[in-house]
């Protein structure tokens, strides 16, 4: 019997070495180690052995069994490895071909820039106020120190609904509404859509957007106005940006100013974008007129404040180099996709 066992071991080894498939390996296992396998059959004959021989044969048989199982395992791992490598090779693709398209949309450039402006002022402790677009003449003009029949109304051609209801020409009316409801300190920006009866061309649109701001507290000075807006300009256009304030006139602020920033294209050297002046006007500002504070129910003896206003469409165009305001309202996807 011993010889027979050794014979099987040798035979199995040879067959095993030649195997090259997992199926073949499975069959081998069944053939030699299965219920009707060769090794098993031999061991059936163990009943005919003497009591001295049985343990020895038993031990040898187990040893051979273990040995074959080990070799099967090794072979299996080898075959699996080969199969995997082959599969990987077959799966090679052209990695340079285009990827699947996933659709993602975009925010409108006006929203992108407005978010930036909001972030800057939120960071300075401002809140965001909003108000109606269809407004009362009182809030749009009278409470801002522009009485009826005043030439200052000429600077803002107005769409009227009735004699006292109009489409707001700036977002300042909302500032009055806030002043009426809230005691100082007040620190707000007021973004929103405004309307002026301008014919449409590359730089004018009857519908556009503004961001205005209002700060009212004790001891607010014109120095604070300059400082706050200078910080805004640097955050918005870059830290090398310089600001310049020129005296101007608005009925609702006194002193009033217009603020320029150093041209973002040429850094102040002079170019076509800034008409060779080196400066670009971006907003109007001033100390809130005492009469306006009073319309808002705030005592000008105790409090002072500053206000400012900028055109969102204009700033968006400056920031991105857009040369025609109408593009913002045409909504060509190829345009919107650029921002």
């Amino acid at each position, binding site marked *: 019997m011993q010889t027979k066992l050794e014979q099987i071991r040798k035979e199995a080894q040879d067959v095993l070495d030649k195997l090259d498939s997992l199926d073949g390996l499975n069959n081998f296992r069944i053939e030699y180690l299965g219920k009707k396998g060769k090794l098993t059959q031999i061991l059936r004959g163990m009943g005919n052995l003497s009591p001295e021989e049985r343990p020895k044969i038993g031990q040898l048989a187990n040893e051979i069994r273990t040995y074959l199982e080990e070799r099967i395992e090794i072979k299996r791992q080898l075959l699996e490895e080969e199969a995997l490598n082959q599969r990987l090779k077959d799966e090679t693709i052209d990695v340079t071909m285009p990827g699947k398209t996933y659709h993602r949309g975009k925010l409108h450039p006006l*929203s992108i820039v407005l978010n930036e402006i909001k972030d800057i002022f*939120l960071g300075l402790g401002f*809140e965001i106020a909003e108000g109606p677009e*269809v407004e009362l003449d009182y809030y749009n003009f009278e409470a801002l120190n522009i009485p009826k029949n005043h030439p200052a109304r000429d600077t803002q051609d107005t769409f009227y609904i009735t004699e006292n209801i109009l489409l707001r020409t700036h977002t300042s009316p909302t500032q009055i509404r806030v002043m009426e409801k809230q005691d100082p300190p007040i620190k707000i920006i007021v973004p929103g859509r405004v309307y002026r*009866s301008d014919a449409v061309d590359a730089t004018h649109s009857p519908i556009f957007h503004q961001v205005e701001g209002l700060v009212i507290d004790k001891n607010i000075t014109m120095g604070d106005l300059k400082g706050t807006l200078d910080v805004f300009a640097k955050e918005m256009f870059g830290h090398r940006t310089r600001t310049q304030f020129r005296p*101007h006139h608005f009925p609702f602020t006194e002193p009033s100013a*217009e603020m320029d920033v150093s041209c973002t294209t040429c850094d102040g050297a002079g170019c076509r974008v800034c008409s060779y002046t080196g400066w670009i006007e971006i907003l109007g500002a001033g100390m809130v007129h005492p009469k306006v504070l009073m319309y808002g129910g705030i005592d000008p003896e105790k409090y002072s404040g500053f206000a400012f206003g900028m055109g969102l469409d204009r700033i968006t165009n400056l920031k991105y180099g857009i040369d025609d305001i109408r593009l913002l309202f045409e909504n060509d996807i190829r345009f919107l996709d650029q921002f």
Partner: protein
Amino acid sequence: MLVPLKWLKEYVDIDVSAEELAHRMTMTGSNVEGIHRKGEGIENVVVGKILTIEPHPNADKLVVCNVDTGTRQYRIVTGAPNVEAGQLVPVALDGATLPGGHKINRSKIRGVESWGMLCSGEELGLTDEDYPGAEIDGILVLKEEYPLGMDIREALGLDDDIIEFEITSNRPDCLSVIGIAREAAVTLDSSFRLPKIEVKAGVGDVNTEAAVKVKDPDLCPRYCARVVKDVKIAPSPRWMQQRLSAAGIRPINNIVDITNYVMLEMGQPMHAFDLDKLTGKTIVVRRAYDGEKLVTLDDKERLLNDNMLVIADTEKAIGLAGVMGGANTEISDDTRNVLLESATFDRGSIRMTAKTLGLRSESSSRFEKGLDINNARAAIDRAAQLIEELDAGTVVEGVIDVCNGSLDDRVLEVSWKRINELLGLDLSPEIMGNILKKLEFKVEIKGDNLELVIPSFRQDVEGVADIAEEVARIYGYDKIPMTLMEGTVSRGRRTRKQKLIDMVKDVLVGSGLYEVVTYSFTSPRVYETIGITDPQDIPKTVRIANPLGEDQSIMRTTQIPSILEVLSRNRNRGLPLCQVFEIGTAFLPKSLPLNELPEEKSILTIGEYGPGMDYYDLKGKIEILLKFLGLLNGAEFVPRVHPTFHPGRTAILKLGSAEAGIIGEIHPKVAENYQLEERVIMAELDLDILLDMAKDQRRYRPLPKYPAVTRDLALVVSKDTLAGQVERCIWEFGGELLEKVELFDVYAGSQIPEGYKSMAYALSYRAADRTLTDEEVNALHDSIVKGLEKTLGAKLR
């Protein structure tokens, strides 16, 4: 306001360049919009005299001139039809340049050497306003005697810089050369001088020649009149014409020009009447009668009302006060006697009159800003002086001066400490006082206060804020140090709604939509275009009284038309796929006519088209949004018929009992109106409702510990049974252990009877505290099946 620099220099010393002046004036508040140089580009063109003219030997239409330029004579060929010997003309010499970059060189013209060119007005860039006769077809002939060889720019007054100032409505005193000169003097810290006004007159008495009655002194605080006899109407001298033209006013004749000159110089509009045409030789300043008519100088008949102030004689209206004179008393070549008017009118009345009649003039645009009552008197004497200097007539002695307004000084007391507080400066009251004195304020420092007398030409100064601005702008805005507000740190934050809107936009962008921004006004006919033709269905709208056009005359109540326009535009430009959204405002009047502000509703509108796209693409996006807002579980899509949409592919979104919006495929006829052939799917949602109901508080729920048991459920239902009904029913009978219901197949075909369809659902059951047994699940499943059968007549397949 156009200000020629040479004229300006008569009243103030300026020794800096025009550019430097412009910059410094801008920085003290008189913004310069541009500097115009009329003679720009003209080099080496001089005054020459044509001595002789001979026909050109080789050309019929040309002549050869011998031209004397003082130092030399030149032979010049020209084809101009109007040349004559003895004329003084502009001569462009060899090497000269003309506006536009043209270079003139000597050349041979048809075989004859020409040493330059005789110039027409057009070639020099001139119009008749710059020089009368500049626009004729031919050489510019100079009418005055100029030295031969003089630079043509000097001769024609083209060598002057004209500075264009932007004058804000609070500074009518700067709508004059003297006003600008004052500002320049303060800006440059140089000396300012008013013209010395001296009228000789001495003959007669104005009160025998004319009279003035002011019936409505509230609208006319001051009226001054002078009389001029033996008037000789003639062109005004060259220097006055040049100044007027440079400032943008056309010269007419000496009398009219003088009134315009004084208006430009001193900022006081004036008028001249033909005295002989004044019935009763009396000026009556009164309100017009309702319906009264007047033909103004521009030959248009004006219909007046009793709010308008007119200048009249004893019989009829002869002028619109402060706006424009009447044709019936216009100065003509035959005028022999003149009445000069220099008055102060109520600013509001002038503005309203000008606006009502649609008639604005240099005069009205000054009066409406509020003029200095003292100036009326000074101006009329200045005009009289100029009439004498120009020898245009004999000025009668005396001034009729009807003054009902106050000539008192306006005093103001302000705290100089408050000025420092407002500006953020620390200036001494002396420094402030010096600045104010330069601006012609009278200043006395009394403790914490400045006692001021406001100069009469500064009607705009009323309080401490105005004084602060005067100090700051002259001291220099750039000298105010930049600071950041002192005080407690404030909390910058968005409101709940603002945060939600930002997040909603993120979700929509992530779903593939582009944000668009469209106009809020639209055409009243837009409802028809989106299929709403029944007048009962057309909503009330806010109508603009003065729109830019009919198609921009109502405020929108829906964004569907403007989104369709965007889709249409992109389709026309060749885009195969377009997915957009807008969050905007709908304007809903509460009642018409409008007597309170309309409701402004926040709406979200989505529109898309694309290959293979249909209703379910958009429904999917809406469901993602609803899920994000915590509203998906309570949401119901209820079929609805709406004229804008496909009758079989449209639903109303219901959240509880509220109707939150509509979603559907656009009706093919409506899509056609927008040149869209593909399926267009749109939704319009009431964002106010969505955000009010949104559940934005997130809370952790533990993950399930025990496995789920899934069962499929295949039903046969009638064809018009809705998935929503089936699902509601399944949930109703499913109990608490039902976790998920998913439709995975809808089939109508060979194995299903006619009029029915098969719907297959995958149901998922789970308990939180145990693994469910088959028996438990079977029982649940059975009750669902029974419930479906009872409620919907559904049968197991």
